[in-house]
């Protein structure tokens, strides 16, 4: 039984079948990638995973509970943290605060009215934040405004924010989209580094093969809204169906 | 039934004023992303274009009339407009009487100029500033503009009647088979409605069919991309600001015979026009027009005697009540686009 179980999920938009009978299982402590050409249904599937869309059929279970119809903060509280295409961070806040917020969220829940406690007097949070920043080598930038960071540092910060919550599942949505090759490689290194340090489950949605094959332990290929193959990377490489799916389209 | 028809006519008329002001406001919102609190002041300036033209036409020299005396018992001084000396008293009097329609010609260049100067001189520097700064600077500008008008024209309303050809009312009731006097409507208000329709149609046609309009519409949707295509969107936006100012100004010019203009009439309309724009939906021109007419008609219906008896005070709050209901049922107003002014 995987930590994330997608069963028979189907979704139509008018006459268009975006997802058709998708089955997927992400195992704990693996890096699982979902790939596919443009229009394969990756975004729709992602939106179903995070509760933004409710599928017409099927179920999405995370850690034994359904995620369907839940609000983003509820899904996060279940243990799913999310990395966006372009880093979503709190630009007006300092790096330190950016990391403190997710730690607060994990410790105190979705809402806590600590209006008259002082942030900095909270030793527990402070230490955990410092440790996390040290972990991603950002301690020297702790007082910088997040918006002023370089793109790579923003990605690193976002990753730190997600990891600080010790998620049961880290969801990455095209983490290298629009990046130059050098940046892409940096991101791959960062993810490898993270993976090396801890046990973590990641689910990467990506169309860049290079990224996928560098990281993934298991790959699902999606085409025209339905999973084509699911296997380890070595078997995916050169798989005729995959080749067909990619070459069959405009690419 | 007759009462309903009458109030719908009233609503269309009120709605045309709301729609015209909101149209300019939403152009500025949509194209420039600027919260323009000085838009009401532009409406007011338009109205005072009409007053000013009237003042210019009636510029006078005094002639002492020995046969009459003034209130202190001195010989009466009589003002004779220079215009009478130039074109003769009859033509002169006609010109003065027609000063409001004539003001349209006067107001268009003046208002475009005011708009362009405002945009180049001030607003331009605030595109990248937070909305809070835009509010403060445009509010400050609105106060300054209205105080300047107050300084020259006083605080009292100034009567600016329509030409006598338009005074009186048209009897719709007779046309529809009702008794006389049941559904009458003033000619000038019909003129206003028709005028508003023409201006709205012109603005839409311009945006829809000219290449200029196409670029601006594209710019409204995605400013950066259009900028990247090498099109000088900034200059076009300046012109758009001028057009928005002219639309507000024309609404003001034609409004003067309906209600005598005063220096704070812009503030009276400011809040209302924001409500109209938002109910219509941010960034949507048809939305602004639709909401203008909708609110105008509902306001008129709510002012009927039996409605007030049924729900006391409904005429006081109807517009705001409608705004709340619309915004709660349609998150982005009637026809709003996603992501415009939502943060």
């Amino acid at each position: 039984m995987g930590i994330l179980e997608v069963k028979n999920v189907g979704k139509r938009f008018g006459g268009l079948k975006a997802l058709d009978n998708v089955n997927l299982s992400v195992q704990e402590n693996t890096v699982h990638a979902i790939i596919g050409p443009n229009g394969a249904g990756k975004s729709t599937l992602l939106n179903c995973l995070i509760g933004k869309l409710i599928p017409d059929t099927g179920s999405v279970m995370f850690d034994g509970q359904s995620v369907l119809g839940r609000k983003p903060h509820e899904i996060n509280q279940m243990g799913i943290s999310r990395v966006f295409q372009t880093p979503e961070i709190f630009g007006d806040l300092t790096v330190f605060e950016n990391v403190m917020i997710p730690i607060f969220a994990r410790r105190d829940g979705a809402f806590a009215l600590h209006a008259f406690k002082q942030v900095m007097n909270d030793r527990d949070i402070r230490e955990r934040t410092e440790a996390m920043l040290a972990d991603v080598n950002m301690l020297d930038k702790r007082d910088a405004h997040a918006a002023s960071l370089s793109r790579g540092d923003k990605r690193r910060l976002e990753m730190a924010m997600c990891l600080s919550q010790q998620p049961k599942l880290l969801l990455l949505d095209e983490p290298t989209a629009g990046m130059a090759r050098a940046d892409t490689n940096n991101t791959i290194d960062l993810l490898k580094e993270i993976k090396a340090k801890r046990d973590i489950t990641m689910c990467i949605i990506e169309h860049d093969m290079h990224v996928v094959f560098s990281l993934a332990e298991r790959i699902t290929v999606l085409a025209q809204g339905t999973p084509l193959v699911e296997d380890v990377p070595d078997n995916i490489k050169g798989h005729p169906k995959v080749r067909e799916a990619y070459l069959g389209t405009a690419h | 039934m007759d009462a309903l028809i009458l109030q719908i006519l009233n609503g269309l008329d009120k709605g045309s004023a709301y729609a015209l002001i909101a149209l300019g406001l939403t152009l500025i919102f949509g194209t420039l992303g600027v919260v323009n609190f000085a838009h009401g002041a532009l409406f007011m300036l338009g109205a005072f274009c009409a007053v000013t033209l009237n003042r210019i036409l009636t510029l006078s020299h005094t002639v002492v009339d020995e046969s009459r005396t003034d209130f202190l018992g001195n010989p009466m001084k009589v003002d004779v407009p220079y215009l009478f000396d130039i074109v003769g008293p009859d033509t002169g009097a006609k010109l003065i009487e027609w000063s409001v329609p004539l003001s349209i010609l006067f107001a268009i260049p003046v208002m475009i100029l005011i708009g362009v100067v405002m945009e180049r001189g001030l607003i331009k520097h605030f595109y990248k500033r937070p909305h809070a700064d835009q509010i403060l600077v445009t509010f400050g500008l609105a106060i300054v503009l209205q105080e300047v008008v107050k300084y020259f024209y006083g605080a009292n309303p100034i009567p600016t009647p329509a030409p006598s050809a338009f005074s009186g009312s048209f009897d719709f009731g007779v046309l529809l088979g009702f008794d006389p006097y049941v559904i009458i409507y003033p000619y000038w208000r019909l003129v206003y409605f028709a005028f508003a329709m023409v201006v709205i149609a012109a603005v839409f046609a311009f945006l829809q069919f000219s290449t200029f309009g196409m670029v601006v519409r594209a710019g409204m949707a995605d400013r950066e991309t259009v900028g990247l295509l090498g099109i000088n969107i900034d200059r076009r936006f300046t012109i758009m600001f001028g057009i928005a100012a002219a639309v507000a100004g024309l609404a003001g010019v034609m409004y003067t015979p309906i209600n005598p203009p005063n220096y704070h009439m812009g503030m009276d309309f400011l809040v209302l026009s924001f409500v109209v724009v938002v109910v219509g939906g941010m960034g949507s021109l048809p939305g602004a027009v639709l909401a203008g007419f909708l609110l105008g008609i509902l306001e008129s219906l709510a002012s009927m005697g039996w409605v007030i008896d049924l729900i006391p005070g409904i005429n006081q709050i109807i517009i705001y009540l409608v705004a709340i209901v619309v915004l709660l049922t349609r998150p982005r107003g009637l026809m709003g686009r996603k992501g415009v002014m939502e943060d």
Partner: protein
Amino acid sequence: MTKSNFTRRGLLKTGTAAGAGLAMPTIFTSKVWGAAHTGFTNAPQGDTVTLGFNVPQSGPYADEGADELRAFQLAVEHLNGEGDGGMMQTFSSKTLEGNGIMGKKVQFVSGDTQTKSDAARASAKSMIEKDGAIMISGGSSSGVAVAVQALCQEAGIIFMAGLTHANDTTGKDKKANGFRHFFNSYMSGAALAPILAKEYGKDRKAYHLTADYNWGYTTEQAIRESTEALGWETVNSVLTPLTQTDFSSYIAPVLNSGADVLVLNHYGGNMVNSLTNAVQFGLREATANGKKFEIVVPLYSELMARGAGKNIAGILGSQNWDWKLENEKGARYTGTNAFVKSFGEKYGFPPSQAAHTCYVQTLLYADAVNRAGSFNPCAVVEALEGFEFDGMGNGPTLYRAEDHQCFKDVVVVRGKENPENEFDLVEIVEVTPVDQVTYPPDHPQFAGGALGECNPGA
């Protein structure tokens, strides 16, 4: 131009010169100024006295406020012996000699009410607390008058109301320290009704449009009661929001309602717009029930008439005073010409009724102080209560002790068909004598208030 209006603190300097250089703490129980020494607030020290003129300088009534301020300046000049003395020559009481008030030179401070009660009170308070004003006057709406009157009662200052027409000012909100020279809604009704009946007949059906606030309510009530007593019928009455600018939706149904008279219980911008709209809809040319349709505006003002332009032609209304009164109605209204002359010579146009009231109120206050021989508000109240006077342009007048309301003739006017200039927009139809507009102090339209005790502030 007077250059001598130093603020009162200038004199404090001399007053406290003895203690100069030393810290001289003094403790007062309630108010700051002078209370411990004299028993009342802001007792004038030195040889000047400060009056506070609180008028609208921004907002819709700014022009009316400007006219009030002109009258105040004129009154101060006259009190100080400058200019021609204006009404001081005709005033029946002869204590004013052009040497200020009780020999103290008069100076004034001015402020902006914005026609908002909060702003008006803030402005009045600054006059009391900062400038040491002993009397506050002015204002152009009843909301402001009631608010400032209540403040003056608390502070122990005399309030000489400016333009305020609602019954409440000397009715349910009356105060011992407050006095109103201007007439009120009841008087408008009582003065207008007989003339309306005479001009338009006793069989009329009236439709009221009423501004949806206190003044509107009392005016509608007054007109209704007076006209219904003479046989008129009220068909309908509709409340209109204060913030309304376009009255078309309220005017449009009038012609089809069976009414043949429209009463506009509106003032200021409301009145200008509603009247303009009514004329647009052709109400002036219409006939109903076989009669010519008529419009009535209970409270007239020159500035509103100017705003409405030609539309006021032929419309009846009431006024507190008009500058043509003495010329047209004779010597009973003596004082009018004297005032119009000094005002007209100084400013170049005739004064409005708001200016007249403010001028008269200032003189009446000064005279009351002189007669009382004291600036103590309680002494002034005593001097003004029941005071009968003449020569102030309204004919014989009584300041009634029970409610501090002036009783005098009321002018019924009509908009001129062909005005010669923008200051000559109305013609006097008739003057309703004072006994026809007098009511008992316990009249139900004025119920619910109590003057209370005069408050000297200490």
